[in-house]
């Protein structure tokens, strides 16, 4: 097991004091540390988009890929397909995941590729200092909408449930134990997992009071029941005032995209097998390394 301290990097953290990103950073580091007993640390790959959240790849000492705005998910899918043994965790903002790169998220859910997407959903563009996003509430007064938005936000979890996501959860950056637990379940889920994380931007949209008054943890909820999940997901529409549930809404066990690919390849050619190829490559690498020492 890797000590959590060894997941630190030398990069100076430039997030604002009080930023919700710190909770996400600490939670995921703790999860990676715990899981490093069963998953080799070198098999973790983290991928980020563009925005304040994206700096997270600088702050965790594992393999990482800093991608383009909106393109974290397809980059992660490529990484997973190239080597299905890797544990791929995506960090994306609400601009990335629900705005500029929304189509990728829907298709990743549809094909049930085994990656985890953690959305830093602060409902504001933080790095460009305060504009409205796809999940900003109606009437949100941001710097590009000083008179208030005229658009109703969409409910990303409702959309992802319809798109075929097999693990859907919501976290909150206040209450780190719950967040850690949700992240751990999401990372261990076999298939596409999404954690919409209510990450508070203290500088441009401080929602701590608002959320803290409304959040509650899901209990006695059957995560394998689609209808119950739908009901709970629809309880809060990201716009009107209502209780906001935290925890896992939905989970389904089904074949992943990469499993189907391997299966089809075997069916078609009777020879090709991604695991076999990877094993062969790893043997070659081991031989090269042995010859060097």
């Amino acid at each position, binding site marked *: 097991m890797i000590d959590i301290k060894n997941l630190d990097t030398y990069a100076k953290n430039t997030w604002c004091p009080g930023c919700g990103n710190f909770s996400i950073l600490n939670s995921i580091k703790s999860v990676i540390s715990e899981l490093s007993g069963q998953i080799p640390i070198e098999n973790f790959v983290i991928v980020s988009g*563009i925005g304040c959240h994206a700096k997270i790849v600088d702050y965790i000492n594992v393999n990482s890929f800093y991608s*383009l705005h909106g393109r974290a998910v397809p980059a992660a899918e490529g990484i997973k397909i190239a080597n299905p043994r890797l544990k791929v965790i995506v960090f994306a903002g609400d601009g990335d995941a629900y705005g500029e790169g929304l189509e990728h998220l829907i298709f990743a859910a549809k094909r049930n590729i085994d990656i985890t997407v953690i959305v830093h959903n602060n409902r504001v563009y933080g790095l460009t*200092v305060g504009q409205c996003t796809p999940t900003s509430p109606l009437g949100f007064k941001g710097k590009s909408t*000083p008179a208030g938005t005229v658009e109703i936000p969409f409910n990303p979890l409702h959309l992802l449930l319809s798109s075929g996501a097999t693990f859907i959860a919501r976290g909150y950056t206040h209450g780190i134990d719950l967040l850690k637990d949700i992240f751990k379940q999401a990372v261990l889920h076999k298939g596409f997992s999404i954690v919409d994380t209510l990450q508070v931007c203290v500088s441009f949209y401080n929602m701590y009071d608002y959320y803290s008054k409304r959040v509650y943890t899901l209990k006695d909820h059957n995560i394998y029941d689609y209808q119950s999940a739908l009901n709970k997901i629809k309880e809060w529409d990201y716009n009107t005032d209502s209780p906001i549930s935290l925890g896992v809404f939905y989970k389904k066990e089904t074949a992943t995209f990469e499993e189907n690919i391997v299966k089809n390849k075997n069916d078609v050619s009777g020879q090709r097998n991604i695991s076999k190829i990877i094993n062969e490559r790893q043997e070659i690498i081991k031989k090269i390394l042995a010859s060097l020492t």
Partner: protein
Amino acid sequence: MPQRLTKTANEVFAEAMRQINPDVVAAYPITPATEVVQIFSQFVADGKVKTEFVAVESEHSAMSACIGASACGVRTLTGTSSQGLAYMWEMLYIASGLRLPIVMAVVNRALSSPINIHCDHSDTMGARDCGWIQIFSENVQESYDNFLQAVRIAEHQDVRLPVMVTTDGFILSHCLEVVEVLEDETVRKFIGENPERKSILDVENPFTLGALDLQDYYFEHKRQQAEGMKNSLNLIPLIGKEFGDKFGRYYDFAESYKLDDAEIAIVIMGSTAGTAKDVVDQLRDEGKKVGLLKLRVFRPFPANVIQKALENIKVVGIMDRADSVNAISGPLYPEICTSLYDSDKKPLLVDYIYGLGGREVREEDIQLVFSELFNILKTGKTYNLKYIGVRE
């Protein structure tokens, strides 16, 4: 009376947009261009303009929405930078192919990868062949003046092409300068009414825009588009002169600086022209015959103007703030070569790539370029490319 104000390039772009009072602006935030439409959105909120402002979900959508709006015949503006411009790529060609006079402020920033938010010209240069007119600005004043002229150029019936007006990211977009801002009424008179053009809102004469155009007519339409760009060669100096006659600041394709008797010169675009002019002054004080050609318009490329300006120079250094990564040169160099090919008098040409990703360009860097050029003049020995200010 025009007002003398202290403003950044982002602020004057927004101010120009307010004075133009467009019908539609669609945009998405991106550093360092975010402020342009952000300041403008405050004008919308305050009811200072009639504009319908759409905060879309991406730059691809921003340009798409601008295309839709402009296709309806209304005045349409936007602004972006770097990856935002890159993400608009597909739609940039649609805007020019459909001959839609959209005007866009482009705040020059380096393209990823690696990610960088500071100035170079790689974003605009990447869009150089997409059929847009491209005008570069040396300072905040020029950014403002160019943006106003761009509306006239884009909307002229013989041209009818989209225009991007660039400014250097952070160096100009975020730095204050004293500028002269015209009165609202003066601007409105200068740009005039949005000219009538065939639009898809003409319900009595419905037609399809962007219809399938195969072997039968595609080529003719592209030929017409090329003609529109060629026509802009006549129009741009006329508009620049009219602007000068009215407001005292004259504009042309390029500005010659102490070039008449120069033996050695550099060609440069954007804000570094200001630094380079200072170096030219210093060298002139030392009695050295040096000059500078500041290129303002990159598309259309004013080949004849360049030829006339440079053919009597002995050695010319071309300053490229972008790399074509083609194992030859940056993007400006081959265009200058082409311009001089027909001339009997060919100066020696050298390309210098500088300032990528916002790397600071100091007077010493420009002095170094001139000393290299003097060496070439003395020895007659040249090379085609050098990188300035890089650790290698």
